[in-house]
């Protein structure tokens, strides 16, 4: 068990973070808004944690206090939330593909900024981010409670007035307005909640990866999380959680397959480096054959229906 955890600890924690980032993309999608901004807020949260821990708090000896990590996560969440509102209000005037493009632009702007600012360490980034734990697997102490909290929150959200307002806007924004629901308010709220979650995960991730630079949270990452949500499922939070885990692990699985002896060189190469091509294909096939993703609310309902009918 100890051997397994030390080998796969990094991957397991990454998978949980993948699930969280899937959820951060799922939140705006609850109101029908396809936003790819999550990686931008993720990168922002990471830089906040990296800068605070290496330049402000500067704990020199021993393990970095977990309390400070939690403080950084809170600060990253608040800053992401504020930026989420500021970006969300103008961006959410756009619809569909135009919103997606605007949010990609937002991610790119943040990336170019982080490449060129001194405080973010330019192209080199920030390294030597202090560790609160001795082994990667121990990061589960932070990310598992975070995932459970987010899942409980979304489970509740899908069953209350607020979640119903989100759903109404997703189903028919115009009719939702005629029912007294303010579409702008709820769209910005959903977008901001997603931004906060992405920022908080970024803050943990900076410690976890030990280094943070402009390669974190790029357009590539947007595609990965988009795949997890679209294939996982867009109608219940369980979809993005499972999708985020599976699609974070998938490149590692592909790499393992590529290492099998006797495989033609080109195929092995493709399995190692063709990750985005494979994800792109999955998005196309998934949206054609499973427009609501693989995990749908009907999967859970069917059992209930049977019970009520018998």
């Amino acid at each position, binding site marked *: 068990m100890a051997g397994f955890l030390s080998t796969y600890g990094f991957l397991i924690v990454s998978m949980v973070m993948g699930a969280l980032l899937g959820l951060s993309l799922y939140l705006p999608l609850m109101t029908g808004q396809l936003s790819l901004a999550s990686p931008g807020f993720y990168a922002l949260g990471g830089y906040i944690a990296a800068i605070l821990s290496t330049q402000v708090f500067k704990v020199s000896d021993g393990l970095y206090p977990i309390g400070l990590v939690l403080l950084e996560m809170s600060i990253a969440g608040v800053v992401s939330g504020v930026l989420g509102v500021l970006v969300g209000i103008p961006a959410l005037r756009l619809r569909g593909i135009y919103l997606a493009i605007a949010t990609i632009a937002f991610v790119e702007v943040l990336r170019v900024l982080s490449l060129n600012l001194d405080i973010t360490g330019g192209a080199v980034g920030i390294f030597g981010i202090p560790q609160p734990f001795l082994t990667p697997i121990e990061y589960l102490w932070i990310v598992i409670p975070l995932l459970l909290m987010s899942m409980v929150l979304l489970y509740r959200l899908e069953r209350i007035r607020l979640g119903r307002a989100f759903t109404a806007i997703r189903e028919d924004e*115009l009719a939702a307005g005629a029912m*007294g629901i303010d579409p702008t308010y709820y769209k910005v709220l959903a977008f901001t909640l997603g931004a906060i979650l992405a920022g908080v995960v970024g803050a943990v991730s900076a410690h976890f990866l030990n280094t943070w630079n402009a390669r974190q949270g790029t357009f590539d990452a947007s595609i990965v999380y988009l795949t997890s949500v679209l294939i996982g499922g867009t109608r219940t939070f369980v979809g993005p959680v499972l999708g985020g885990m599976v699609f974070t692990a998938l490149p590692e699985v592909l790499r393992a397959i590529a290492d099998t002896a006797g495989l033609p060189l080109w195929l092995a190469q493709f399995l190692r480096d063709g990750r985005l091509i494979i994800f792109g294909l999955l998005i196309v096939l998934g949206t054609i054959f499973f427009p609501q993703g693989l995990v749908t609310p009907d999967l859970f309902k069917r059992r209930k229906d049977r019970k009520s009918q018998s």
Partner: protein
Amino acid sequence: MIDENLTTSNPILEAKSLNRTFGGLVAVNNVSFTVNKNEIFGLIGPNGAGKTTLFNMITGLIEPSSGQMFYQGEEISFLRPHLIAKAGIARTFQNIRLFGDLSALENVTIARHIHTKSGFIRGILGLPPAPSEEIRNKQKALELLDLVGLSDRAFEKARNFPYGDQRRLEIARALALEPQVLLLDEPAAGMNPSEKNQLSEFIRELRSQFNLTVILIEHHVPLVMGLCDRIAVLNFGKLIALGDPAQVRTNPAVIEAYLGSD
């Protein structure tokens, strides 16, 4: 009772020289009228006369190019749709706009939005008044489904309902807002004659039960003549007649523009 309403003349909704143009097309041209409280007010006219455009202006989906709209003495010309709904004006849509993927019950529960207060924190944590609000909402929604005769299918998806039932579900959803004014856009479209007769009865019942003012767009002339207290006739965006059914029926402009074409 109808005469009493007319003589006391208690305006709830007032349109003053409303205009709306789409590019070069004048969809609504200088239309003024007053709807009295508790009245069933019909809006008729040939296709493209501007009836739905007028509805959309009343409910804030489109803004008037000029002119004003008053509701209970307050101007609502440029209010956004959700604020007009909140003020007490609910509607149904000509081309049914239910939340198709959701159950009938969910459709009606969503429309209880403005009558509940619990926001993010209290909703998530289930703190008072959120839980009791949720229960009350569900009861209220079930009552309304019962009223329109759909309570036994509360958990079916709205898109699987037959056409007439979808129209009734839309009415239940609009009633969930507890409106003062109910706007029905072609409620009888696609219904058979016996359903149409029931509909007249049903709309009258709604008015007395909920103390409603009803404004309806309808193509089926006998239904409008039999049901409405007063009727406004639009043609090419202009108001060509306004009065009780007998007056409208005999109005030469109406006969030429609309009834004569029958």
